């Protein structure tokens, strides 16, 4: 299949504006600016069926429509580049290899929604990305794509990079906004949503890096064209970062709806040493696990939801028969315990309790009743304040349900069966 999102990344010096322009860069933006009204742009994006790639899958056109309809000024356009989930490294490719696609996507979005200022909220651990983005932004200023009265129009847009300080929760859009305001990174009550009351309580669009990289394609080739790629109700190309026990880990661009099995076995080359696949977390660290019987599922938002899990960021983590499922779940929930902001009870306390129970089970000190307790803690965590806590328990609860035997083996055997000692 034709590479769309990754069309530039193999080119030498793909991060420079010269290479980007030579490949047709900023044409979509100029088309939008000169030939289309902001409403036309919103319509085109709605037509494309694009859904946000940050995890929640919210229709991008609709988000823009809400923001455009709000009359408060000034408005802000924020690119969420906080990519902080374990095993998710798809945005990084765009940030480092194709930063101008991101900037162009933001420009089009800002034009469509009437935003005057833009920020790229960049993960603190991406220092190279920061340099590349800052350089790309200054190139864009030099070429007149950023600043006041861009290309002689009355559209003005200034863009800045804002580095995070290493908190995963700051990827959540309202925590991200709090952090941008210089406050402690904690999510806000919604509603109001950022599109109406975001940064400095002004209308603010927050979009993921990958979401924005799709925009120039949609404007250049049309929403209709885009909507025909991949799954009909969730179209477009998608970046899948694949990690774990596969022969060729990496980021793969494939149409939405590609079967999980195909991604693992064809694109990522199958399981290392041709072992048996045991389990897959199909949509990042907080998705529910799939067993080897369940991997024929198409990789898109609705299909995975139907399969009882989620697409999330699209990060695929593969475990083979030599991996301990309890240990895997423990690792993941430890991450969330560490990253929980602590605002709400279920997540703050639930993650810690789950870690402690799983540590005991893994260490051979579990009791059978623990499993029931785990499931009820997971249920309580469903009522967390934000998406972190609502999803953090998934890897634990789903493995207890689907790999109960393995948990029981730990409990009854008094040790982890995967450990020699």
């Amino acid at each position: 299949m034709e590479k769309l999102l990754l069309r530039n990344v193999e080119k030498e010096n793909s991060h420079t504006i010269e290479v980007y322009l030579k490949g047709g860069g900023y044409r979509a933006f100029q088309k939008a600016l000169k030939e289309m009204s902001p409403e036309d742009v919103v319509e085109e994006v709605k037509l494309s069926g694009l859904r946000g790639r940050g995890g929640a899958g919210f229709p991008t056109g609709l988000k823009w429509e809400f923001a455009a309809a709000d009359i408060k000024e000034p408005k802000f356009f924020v690119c969420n580049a906080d990519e902080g989930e374990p095993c998710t490294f798809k945005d990084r490719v765009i940030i480092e290899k194709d930063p101008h696609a991101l900037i162009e996507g933001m420009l089009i979005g800002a034009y469509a929604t009437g935003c005057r200022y833009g920020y790229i909220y960049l993960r603190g651990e991406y220092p190279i990305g920061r340099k590349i983005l800052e350089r790309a932004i200054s190139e864009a200023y030099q070429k007149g794509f950023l600043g006041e009265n861009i290309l002689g129009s009355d559209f003005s847009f200034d863009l800045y990079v804002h580095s995070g300080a290493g908190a995963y929760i700051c990827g959540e859009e309202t925590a991200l906004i709090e952090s941008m305001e210089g406050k402690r990174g904690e999510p806000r009550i919604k509603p109001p949503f950022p599109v109406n009351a975001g940064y400095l309580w002004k209308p603010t669009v927050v979009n993921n890096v990958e979401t924005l990289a799709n925009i120039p394609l949609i404007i250049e080739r049309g929403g209709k064209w885009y909507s025909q790629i991949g799954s009909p109700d969730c179209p477009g190309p998608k970046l899948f970062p694949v990690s774990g026990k596969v022969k060729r880990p990496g980021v793969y661009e494939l149409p939405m709806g590609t079967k999980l099995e195909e991604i693992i076995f064809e694109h990522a080359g199958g399981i290392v040493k041709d072992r048996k696949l045991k389990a897959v977390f199909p949509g990042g660290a907080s998705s529910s696990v799939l067993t080897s019987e369940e991997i024929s599922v198409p990789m898109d938002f609705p299909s995975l939801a139907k399969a009882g899990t989620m697409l999330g960021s699209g990060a695929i983590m593969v475990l083979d028969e030599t991996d301990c499922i309890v240990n895997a779940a423990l690792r993941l929930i430890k991450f969330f315990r560490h990253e929980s902001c602590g605002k709400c009870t279920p997540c703050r306390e639930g993650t810690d309790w789950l870690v402690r129970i799983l540590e005991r089970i893994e260490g051979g000190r579990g009791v059978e009743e623990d499993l029931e307790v785990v499931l009820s803690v997971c249920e309580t965590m469903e009522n967390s304040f934000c998406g972190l806590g609502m999803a953090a328990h998934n890897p634990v609860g789903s493995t207890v349900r689907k790999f109960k035997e393995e948990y029981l083996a730990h409990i009854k055997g008094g040790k982890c069966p995967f450990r020699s000692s």
Partner: protein
Amino acid sequence: MESFKIVIDGKECEAFAGDTVLEVAERNGIVIPVFCYHKELRPEGACRVCLVEVEGAPRLVTACTLKAMPDMVVKTNTERVKRARAGVIELILNNHTLECPICDKSGECELQMTGFRNGPKKSRYREKRREKDIVIKGPLIEIDNDRCILCRRCIRMCGENMGNRVLGILNRGYKAYISPFNGDFLEGGCEHCGSCVDVCPVGSLLDRAFKYKDRPWRMDKTWTTCSLCGSGCTIEVDSYHGKVKRVVGRIGVNRGHNKGYLCVRGKWGWDIIYSEKRLKEPLLRQGDSLVKVDFEKAVEVLKEKLEGREVNLFLESSLTSEELTKIRDVFGGKAVSDSYGYYKLLRGIASITGALNTSLFSSIYSSDVVFVLGDFIEEFTPVIATLLRLAVIQKGKRLIRLGTFPSKLDSVSFSTLLVPQEEIIDTLKHLIVGTFDSSYQSGNKEIDSVAKSLRGKKLSFVVGGNVPFSVESEEIGKTVAFLADRAGAPLVAIPPKANSLKVVELFDLVEPSNLKGEVNVLINCELERDFPGVELPSADFTVIFTPFYTPEVSQADLVIPIELGLEKRGTFKGIEGELSLDSVLETPFSLLEVLKYLPSKGISSKEKQVPLIKEPGKKVLHRKRELLLTVLPNRTGWNSVSYYSENVVKVSGKRELLLNSQELREPKLVSLRVENKELQVQAVPDASVPKGHALLRVERFTRDISSLLRGNFPFLSGIKCEILEA
């Protein structure tokens, strides 16, 4: 306002736009458990214990953040809801210390009650209890983080409602804990209002003066009125067997106009009752010394000395209305009082309105724009400043302030006009025209823009803080009353002392030089504090009624102990009408009891007449090269607490002279000169002090300050001064 219906647990309930489901439920007697929610605070949605089921919503929703919508159907008692609540409470209890037997909150702890009602009945926790072991101790407040449930009420209370932002969270997730800025209350700017302690649902934020002192369930709880300033706060005094253990505000429950908000004086100053300086028996002069006598003897001497003599009456204004009435009856209606400056202000106002009175404080709530005139309201009447702030952040009022010095209120005000002190009256006069005439131009854009924000709005006026003590007090009163009168708006004149209004109503207040009597009678006063700059007139005999061994006791011939505010029953004429005092404490002495033995002078009450002039005031302050001095008692100062409360002394301020940082580059010792009197004082540059002004902050009015102010009574502000090299 238009209402609509929602259904909660099958009951049709009336709801208004903006209501949360929790509020509607509460109004209808449906109890939903809460931890982070507090009536006085912005909803946080953090604890997740108030979950309810909403028809059509897949997830449970927190009632405290959920806005009621027409035809919403809510269930608060399904099995799913009960399980979810119990689940949350279980998570909190797992690592909670459960030190109930020794926890000060036990018995009124919301975790105990909510846990009892909605918690799991059995623990499933097999892990070792997690300990944070982070206890942060301030002078009066302590945080025990192992008891904290991280509801964040304290943070919102301090940061948003009080505007102090002392408290915050450090670390994250299960390691998160509450701390004052830099781990230190004083450094963090804590004003010791006690509001955080008040709203903490558990025993985490503690009143150190109460720590391990008693059990909440066995104390007598008495609602009374704080007598320590004109805010007139309603307080709950908790005592056991007649001994006070603490004072609490009960924010959100308190029915007084202060809504339970207090200041450091009201919250912690109660211990003056037990001060070592407390006077317990009458003293009578014998030669060079004072000797103890019994009450019969004291009354006998008193009667004899007063017989047929005219008295010089010095009155402090936190006496009850009943005491004041009796005092007037036996000593006559002429007095020198610490309410003299306030009287001048009211006289100015009365020249427009005809009445020596104030509008009720609550009248500001029916206006849209509140015009505040005065500086240092937060020092003189702290809770009034809090209520003004809350009027903005909770009730959406617009606040406009005119003054000379910056104030914490300015962070919530819609606009703030800061002008040199001598221009206050002129500024008001511009507003008198500009507010009603859109074509008027004052020559000052800021004034014009304030005039515009007042124009056509439903206004109310508040004057207080240092204004009663300003040399222009009466003229300012006339001018602001003229403006309020033209706008048809209420004018609230904040009394500096608890019963200033009654003193003004009952007594003919005079200049000290007008006292020509033969017997000095001082009631409840401390000469230097209440009458700075005034000398005791020479007289044949001096009687002092006082709760404490005050400095002037040594000059007295007869000293008679009296009660403190918390020991009295009676009333005040306060900012919100009549406020009542109640007490279960007993004292062996009583002012009213003693006065009973004195003959009545039989003065008939007459309505005081102030001629109606209906003219704005005239500027009094004209300044050449001098600085204008304001002497400001610290928040902890101002009344007996700063002299006799061991609690309050722990957080007391210091004496310093603040000067504009362009006029003084670095701290140094200077000589402050008023007319021919001088005071050596440490001067400190301060950007918030406007040029041409000097601010002398004092913790106590001592002899040297009183000497500096000689002849200026009742004024503390707008006094011409010079700074000389020390």
